[in-house]
C-alpha cells in the first residue's frame, strides 16, 4: 500500500482525536480521544516501519524493527498513564460527583 494512504489515515484519526478533545467535556471521553491520537501515531509508526523495511530489503532485513518496538513502548506508557489518569478522574469524581472538565474552574486568570 502506498505510504500516503497510511499517513492520511493516521492524520485523519489524529485530527478526529483532537476534535474530540476540543468538543467534549467529559474527562473520560477526552482521555479516550487522546488514546485515539496515540493510536494514530502507533499506526503511522508501524506503517513507516514497514516502509523503511521495504526500502532496504536485501541488505538488512531488520530495518524498521525499531518502529514496531517503539509502538510497544507507547502501549506500555499508555497503560501506565491510564492507571494514573483514571485514578485522578475517580478521585475528582469522589469530591465533586462530576467528571465535567468545565465544572472545575476555580483556577483561572
Amino acid at each position, binding site marked *: 500500500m502506498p505510504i500516503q494512504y497510511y499517513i492520511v489515515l493516521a492524520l485523519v484519526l489524529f485530527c478526529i482525536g483532537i476534535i474530540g478533545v476540543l468538543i467534549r467535556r467529559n474527562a473520560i471521553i477526552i482521555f479516550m480521544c487522546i488514546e485515539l491520537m496515540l493510536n494514530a501515531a502507533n499506526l503511522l509508526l508501524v506503517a513507516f516501519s514497514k516502509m523503511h523495511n521495504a526500502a532496504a530489503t536485501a541488505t538488512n532485513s531488520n530495518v524498521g524493527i*525499531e518502529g514496531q518496538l517503539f509502538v510497544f513502548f507507547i502501549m506500555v*506508557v499508555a497503560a501506565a498513564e491510564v492507571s*494514573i489518569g483514571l485514578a485522578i478522574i475517580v478521585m475528582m469524581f469522589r469530591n465533586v460527583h462530576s467528571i465535567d472538565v468545565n465544572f472545575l474552574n476555580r483556577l483561572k486568570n
Partner: protein
Amino acid sequence: MNAIIFSALIGVVMMLGGIVIKNNASIQSLAIILLFILLGSHLAEYYNLFNIHIETHGMLAKNRFGMFFNTIIISLTLLYVLLSGDEIAKAGTYGAEYFALLFFSLCGATILSSYNNLLMLFLGVEIMTIPLFVLTASEKKNLKSNEAGLKYFLMGSFSTGILLMGIALYYGGTGLFAIEAGIGKNANEIQQTLRILLPLGLLFIFISLAFKVSAAPFHFWTPDVYDGAPSVFTSFMATIVKTAGFIAFIRLFELRSVDMSYSWKILLPLIIILTLLAGNITAVFQQSVKRMLAYSSIAHAGFMLFALYNPNDFGKQGILLYTVAYSLATIGTFAVLTKMKDYTYEGYNGLAKSKPVLAATNTIFLLSLAGIPLTAGFFAKYYMLASALKESTRNLWLVIVAVLFAAVSVYYYFRVIQAMYFKEGNAETTEIKPFFKVLLIIIAALIIVIGLMPSLLLDLFYA
C-alpha cells in the same frame, strides 16, 4: 549512567522505606541521605572514580554538558529537599511515597539530560511527568489540587500525543530514532526532494517540548497547575522539571539547528516574544504571589528559549547559568512562600519587620529573578542576550523587546519587595527553624557569589 540508576534505585528504596519508617522526620533524613548518595555516585562518575557501565546501544550518550547539568539538578534537588523536606513530609500521609515520586521524576530528568534516542526522550518525559501528575493532585481534599491534577494530566497527555505524532513523522523521514539521524544528509538530496516528514515531525516535537517548558502559546496549563499544586511541589516543577525540559529541548535542537535554521529564525523569535508577553504581562495582574511566580516562570522560559534560538557558547553556558540562577532563586522564593499563611501580596506586608532574614533573603531571590546586577539572575539574562547578539546583530530588535519585558517583570517582583519592606502589616508565617534560615542565607549568598563571579560556576563546566 550512575545518576539514572541511582535515582531510580533510591526511589525504590524510598518506596520500600515508607513501609518500615512511619516517622516523618526519619523519612526526611533518609531522603536526604539517599540524595547525598546519589550526588556522591554521580560525582564519582563525573570524576571517573566509579561508573556502572551499561551497554545502551546508543540509547543514551554520556556527555559533559548533560553530566554537568545532572550535577546541577541533583544538587538543586538536594537543596530543595533540605529546605522543604518537612513540607513534603507534611503534604499528606504518604511522605515516603512523595519522596519516591520526586526521585523517579528526577530519574526522568537525568534521562533527559543524556538521551540519544527519541525513545529515551519519550520515556524520560513520561517518567518525569507521570509522578508530577500525582504530586499535583496530591492534596486530595483540595479541589484546587484536584483540578490542577486533572488539567495537568489531560493536557500533558495531549502533548504526549503530539510528541508521538512528531516522533512518528520523524521516523518516517529518517528511518531512525537516533537524534543524530538525518544529519549529514547531503545538501543536494535535500534540495532535490522536498522533505516534509522530518521537519514536520520536529515541529511537532518542538511543540510538545514547548508545552513541557511552558512556552507560549502552549503555556496555559502552567499557571493553573502551579497555582493548584501544593506549593512545595510547584517549586520542584518550576525549577528542576522545567530546566530538565530545556535540556531535553537543547539536546535535540542544537543538533538539528543546521537543518532547520531557516524556519527557526521566524518560529523561535515568535515563540520567544509570545512567551515573554504572556508571562510578563499577565503576571502584572496577579494578586497571589504563587500565581505570579507561575507566570514569572513562563517569562523565564521566554529567556531560556534564547539558548535554543542561539545554541552557541553563550547560549549553552548561559542556559546552565540560567538554570542555576533561576532555580536557586525560585526554590528560595517558594520556600519562603510555603511558610506564608497568606499567598497574596498583602500576606507579605510587613514581613521585613517580623522576619527580617526571610525578607532580606527573599529580596535577593526576587532581585535575582528580576535580573538585577550583582545577582546571578543578571548574568543569566546577560548570557541569553549575548547569545542572540553573537549569533547575528539582526537580533538586536529581539534583544530590545526582551529587555523591555524584563523591565515589566520588575513591576511584579518589586511588588513583593514593596509589601515586605514598605507596607505596614504583620505577615504571618508558620514556624521557622533556624536551619531553614541558614539555608536561605546560603542560597542568597550563592546567588550573590555567582552574580559577582559567574566564572566560578562556568569554569567547572570547562574544567
